[in-house]
């Protein structure tokens, strides 16, 4: 196994203020990793640093063997966000397609004129849409799709270039419980079947808990990383969040985190 992401005593400062520092961690190819932590602790900033959008203020980081920002074509990104405006009159397929060649200048040639490259692009779009199961609504204006449907289309967009690393910022937020479960399962399937490493910021760890290989907890300006059984314990969580948190096992033996602060509260 090779590391897709490696941080060595890394630090980030935004507007002159150090958000976190002394963070060292490694993510291996094909691992499903959750990033947890209270609001405003710098989870989104960590993802932006991985993408080279926020520079490090100290330490070192290697992404897919290169400097951050140099390999974004091999990373699928889903930023933290609200839903699309309901009036956005652009189809889901077009949004997915932008993930493939949206950064290229010019306009795509229509239909036949685009030749075999155009056909391949269209096939690739259909392929990822089928992979996330969005075929039924990909032709509708994305503003009229439900939150879960939009999230699946955006995951298809993130997957379209066949990335080696998926960077997902709270993709389960604003989804109902059923959709949280099915989107989590979808991400797990993608992670396993395509051997894509997944870095997923989550507010509520429960829907993804059964699938996780590693957990990164950001708190108090630093980070703790380890397998879920080690990090997700009542003592560690209580210490990191600074409020009492319990970790229980349900009937199937799965871990459940109880009392996690603002699991459903407002987010930034």
């Amino acid at each position, binding site marked *: 196994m090779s590391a897709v992401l490696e941080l060595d005593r890394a630090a980030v400062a935004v507007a002159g203020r150090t958000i976190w520092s002394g963070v060292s961690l490694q993510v291996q190819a094909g691992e499903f990793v959750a990033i947890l932590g209270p609001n405003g602790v710098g989870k989104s900033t960590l993802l932006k640093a991985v993408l080279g959008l926020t520079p490090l203020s100290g330490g070192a980081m290697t992404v897919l063997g290169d400097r951050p920002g140099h390999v*974004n074509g091999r990373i699928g990104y889903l930023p933290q966000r609200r839903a699309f405006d309901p009036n956005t009159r652009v189809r889901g397929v077009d949004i997915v397609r932008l*993930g493939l060649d949206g950064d290229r200048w010019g306009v795509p040639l229509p239909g036949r004129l685009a030749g075999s490259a155009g056909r391949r692009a269209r096939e690739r779009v259909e392929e990822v849409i089928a992979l996330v199961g969005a075929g039924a609504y990909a032709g509708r204006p994305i503003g009229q799709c439900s939150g879960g449907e939009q999230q699946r289309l955006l995951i298809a967009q993130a997957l379209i270039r066949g990335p080696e690393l998926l960077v997902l910022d709270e993709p389960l937020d604003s989804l109902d419980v059923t959709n949280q479960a099915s989107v989590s399962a979808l991400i797990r399937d993608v992670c396993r079947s395509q051997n894509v490493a997944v870095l997923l910021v989550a507010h509520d760890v429960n829907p993804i808990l059964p699938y996780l290989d590693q957990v990164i907890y950001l708190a108090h300006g630093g980070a703790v990383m380890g397998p879920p059984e080690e990090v997700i314990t009542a003592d560690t969580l209580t210490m990191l969040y600074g409020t009492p948190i319990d970790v229980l096992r349900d009937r199937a033996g799965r871990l459940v985190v109880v009392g996690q602060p603002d699991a459903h509260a407002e987010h930034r």
Partner: protein
Amino acid sequence: MSVDLTWDLVADVRQLLSYHFMLNALRAGTIVAVVCGAIGYFMVLRRQSFVGHTLAVIGFPGAAGAIWLGVSSGFGYYGFCIAGALVIAALPGGGRAGSGLGGAGEESAVVGTVQGFALACGFLFVSLYKGFLSGLNNLLFGTITGVADHQVITLLIAGVLCLAVLVAIARPLLFVSVDPDVARASGVPVRLVGTVYLVLLGTAAAGASQITGSLLVFALLVAPAATASRLTARPYLGLGLSVLIAVLVTWLGEAFAFFSPYPIGFWVTTLAFGAYLLATGYGLLRERLGRRLVTA
């Protein structure tokens, strides 16, 4: 001039085309409509209508100032609109198409201030140039009689440049407009694309101002694009439809202005608004029928 509307359409069109000023108006109108239809499509997508309106209004002090100084009003329109676009792009948050997905919200307060200032300057220049008040209506509401040959050439050059640049940036612009965060992560120079787009918008507004007047540019920038996006959610088809609607509305508006005493701005606005209402009605009808099919 005396014109008579008959029931013979061919004779009417022939009559209309027999006037050189009308030919120029149609040429200029067509160029302006194509450019506005295309640029306006992205304006609607980016929810920058207010910025577009402001840029159009900025053309008014430009033209008034140019006439006061005794130079061609075209300089005033292009100079002020493009400078205005650069100022808005440089203002903090002014040139951003909103931070949300699909381009929600815009810094309206900043842009509104610029707009108010522009209008005030325009009326100042008009009052400084005392003999000029009769031209005020034309500056604000447009005219079909005043388009000179050299103006058509200028419009054509500006229009071709505008469209060439738009084609070059169209795909990243679409990306940035609907999903700025992912576009930035994919390496699209978001700020540059936004600024270039604002300059295009300023250029389009300057051109259109010379035909429809500063206050009614909006009819060509916003209504055809809004109509097209009611009709289709395919971006490039929408772009084409928007251009088509803008051209039709302009031709009809100019013809109606020719045969009636009312200014072209009024006709173009009315027709564009009518098209929008029709498209909205069609959209609602289709939705209702679709729902009935689903529930049946």
